[in-house]
């Protein structure tokens, strides 16, 4: 959309803040990648028109583009509460659930969206992708942080939904506490000899958008998992690629006289990564970029305690 049109719409909105032109303006700004401004416009519009489903749908789409999936989910749920057959919200929730690795929910939402608009070829393609991923899925268990209310799922979906996908795992500041046990202590079920080693850090993490891995000195995975959006566990690949950084750090520290290294954090386009030595190996936490670096460091500290507990009990 030309800049002149955006300017014209901005002027209309400035003259009449309750004008529904904010929907077009916010969408135009979103398409131009001006997400901060787009969000401001959309939030102001949604505040003035709280009963307008499209206003919340706009906030949700912009939030999704910004990587703020929590807000996107909440806004789309609001849309469905106002208009249960809203195809845009179903589609949006379908894509978010897919991103979170919750393939059954994604298929349900996308199926409902396709039912509402059978001519949308992007929905057909997305649904095919999700179904293919479901077919290829192994035993990797679903994990999620961002809870989607059961009521937001299509009513005609008659399959059981795993508890974890509805409630999500507790955020770090709400990790379950047992009497007499520190919050970072090893959960009781992980003491069992046949405990799922992939799940050792699950309750410390920010769900599917973050992962923790405990690697041995050779870069092999001891515990933790890194589940991709299509349900595959990439822990071995990620661990092998990143474990070499700790060797390089040790080499540098030997020559620089700064003592042993305690922690490395780095930010990339897609993730914030923190790692620290843990016994003879290394512990690694990776989180999707919207999650701040300080939070990742905090998770790393707690995961280190957990790893120590787990190794002591292994």
């Amino acid at each position, binding site marked *: 959309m030309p800049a002149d049109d955006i300017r014209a719409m901005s002027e209309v909105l400035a003259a009449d803040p309750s004008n529904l032109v904010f929907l077009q303006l916010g969408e135009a700004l979103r398409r131009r990648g001006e997400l901060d401004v787009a969000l401001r416009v959309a939030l102001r519009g949604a505040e003035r028109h709280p009963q307008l489903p499209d206003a919340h749908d706009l906030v949700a789409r912009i939030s999704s583009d910004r990587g703020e999936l929590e807000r996107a989910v909440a806004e789309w749920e609001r849309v469905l509460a106002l208009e249960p057959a809203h195809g845009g919200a179903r589609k949006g929730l379908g894509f978010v659930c897919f991103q979170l690795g919750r393939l059954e929910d994604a298929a349900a939402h996308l199926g409902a969206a396709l039912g509402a608009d059978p001519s949308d070829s992007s929905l057909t393609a997305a649904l095919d992708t999700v179904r293919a991923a479901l077919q290829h899925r192994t035993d990797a268990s679903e994990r999620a942080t961002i809870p989607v209310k059961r009521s937001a799922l299509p009513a005609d979906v008659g399959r059981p939904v795993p508890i974890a996908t509805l409630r999500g795992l507790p955020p770090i500041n709400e990790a379950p506490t047992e009497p007499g046990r520190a919050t970072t202590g090893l959960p009781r079920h992980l003491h069992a000899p046949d405990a799922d080693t992939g799940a050792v850090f699950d309750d410390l993490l920010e769900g599917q958008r973050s992962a923790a891995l405990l690697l041995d000195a050779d870069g092999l995975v001891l515990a933790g998992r890194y589940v991709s959006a299509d349900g595959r566990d990439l822990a071995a*690949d*990620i661990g092998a*690629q*990143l474990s*070499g*950084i700790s060797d*390089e*750090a040790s*080499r*540098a*520290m030997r*020559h*620089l*006289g*700064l*003592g*042993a*290294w*305690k*922690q*490395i*954090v*780095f*930010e*990339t*386009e*897609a*993730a914030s*990564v923190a790692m620290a030595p843990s016994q003879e190996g290394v512990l690694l936490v*990776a989180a999707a970029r919207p999650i701040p*670096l300080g939070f990742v460091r905090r998770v790393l500290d707690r995961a280190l305690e957990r790893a120590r507990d787990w190794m002591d009990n292994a």
Partner: protein
Amino acid sequence: MPRTFSHITDSLIRHRGVLGAMIVGIDDGMIVVSTLQIGVNGNAFAALSASLYRKARRSAAAAGFGATGFLELAAEQGRLCAAGAEELVIIVVCEQRVNLGMLRVELLRSVEQLP
């Protein structure tokens, strides 16, 4: 664009706890410009820090995480911070007590001035 980057290292060294600031070639670890306190072995820090940054960048790219920006290594007796552009990386050597948040912001701002 300025021909030298000494204003960047001069500004970084003013942070409390910073012992040295350098701009270094990522591939060769050679110092382009530096501002160091007395006693800091710039060449060793430059070579080893650039090597660490290079390793992190390659590993992160291989893991599918994309380009690397800010990196911090905390050790028992100090910290290394780095932020890189395509060919150059800014490296800061500092004590434990440095204000990391402030330093990170300035590093990321400064790196935008590098080619």
